């Protein structure tokens, strides 16, 4: 009589989960004061709530927040599981260019951390939301975005809130900027979290087609 054979094991390599980094680049200039900022804050809470319904996304998605102006790292890259949205208050002018460069630096730094620690990752997203016109020099930022997009280093999205200078946004972002309908920040952030959730589960060879922005963007 021979022994039972078993192929059962649960001793697996403990590799870190792949990460899906996303930077929110948020305009908190004076003109966002009042309802726009209240709705933006509510949108961030929605983002957190929607994300927490998905255990895999909670492990994989990382969120960072840069506000402007002045340019400030409001939240350094944080796992979605430990991300508690700050309450943003309105401040000064609109140094969009400097804020973008700050965000792109954070993305490259984060990638370096990942590589140093053997963590695999998805293409980072940078998500700019603004209601104004840049008050600083933004050409260098636009060049950096064009270069990064061409090299597929990250994906940059621009959302204009009512009053935003869409012509300038078009020169900054390679992808067509979208206009937020009214103050539908909550719908916008629901869309963002569901997009991040599908990206963070995609497997090699899968280009994730983004869901059309429904219910918050006007054409």
């Amino acid at each position, binding site marked *: 009589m*021979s*022994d039972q*054979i*078993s*192929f*059962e*094991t*649960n*001793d*697996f*390599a403990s*590799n870190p989960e*792949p990460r899906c980094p996303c930077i929110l680049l948020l305009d908190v200039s004076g003109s966002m004061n009042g309802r726009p900022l209240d709705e933006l804050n509510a949108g961030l809470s929605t983002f957190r709530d929607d994300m927490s319904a998905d255990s895999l996304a909670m492990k994989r998605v990382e969120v960072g927040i840069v506000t402007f102006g002045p340019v400030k790292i409001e939240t350094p890259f944080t796992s979605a599981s430990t991300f508690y949205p700050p309450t943003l208050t309105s401040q000064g002018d609109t140094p969009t260019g400097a804020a973008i460069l700050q965000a792109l630096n954070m993305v490259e730094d984060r990638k370096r951390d990942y590589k140093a*620690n*053997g963590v*695999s*990752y*998805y*293409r980072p997203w940078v998500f700019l939301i603004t209601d104004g016109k840049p008050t600083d020099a933004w050409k260098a930022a636009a060049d950096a975005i064009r270069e990064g997009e061409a090299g*597929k280093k990250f994906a940059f999205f621009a959302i204009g809130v009512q009053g935003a200078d869409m012509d300038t946004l078009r020169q900054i972002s390679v992808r067509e900027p979208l206009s937020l309908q009214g103050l539908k920040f909550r719908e916008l952030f629901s869309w963002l979290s569901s997009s991040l959730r599908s*990206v963070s*589960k*995609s*497997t*090699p*060879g*899968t*280009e*994730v087609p983004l869901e059309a922005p429904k219910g918050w963007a006007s054409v």
Partner: protein
Amino acid sequence: MTWRLVSASEVGTSHEQTATPCQDSCWAQSDQLADGGPLLSIFVADGAGSAAKGGEGAELAIEAAAAFIAKKVKLGEFGLSDTLATDIVLAIRERIYAAADAANLKARDFACTFLGVLSSAYGTLVLQIGDGGVVLDTGNGLEVAVVPMSGEFVNMTHFVTDEDAVTLLETKMWPDRALKVAAFTDGIQRLALNLATNTPHEPFFTPFFNGMAKASAEQEDLLQGLLAKFLGSAPVNERTDDDKTLALALWVA
């Protein structure tokens, strides 16, 4: 004296949810060479999720590679070399391009990865395009053959259908026969390899090679079922929702 073989592909839970069939394919065989010695051939392929016919591409790749080796074995002596690896890739591409033409599709629609291991008394050859991995022992302990190939981002890799597949092809050779071989697709990669150091996670492999070593002749037929059961088990599915393939060979003297 030959290799004891077992291989299986199981559908991933994310594919079950969307009713997509398993897009992995695998092959493990031992043939007799002209000099009487055995030749091991193991192939695994993972069809791209983004390709309409990725799963069929993986099947075609395996078929083409197996047919190519069968022909070589029939013709007699051949060397395990870079040239052979390139010829296998070209044979696969020819098969996929023909299928794509016949179906009025593009080769890209059949995109898949491809990993192969060939071993005889004269040495061992590993070839690889894309992610997934081969772990083997030719007498110096388990080692990772080729660093898993992915692009910068985790959801990018290379495919046998890429224009520059022959350039992307990675090969490695050993002067000795492979005593233990495990070839797997990326669904298993994160469980079986320490990705930071590119080393095999030995405890993952131990139960398989131990089980294969002690299986009696009657038990050998059970191995495939045990492997399939493992690949579909809860501990595995908690770690990966992708299709998973594991093909194993153990030299039994």
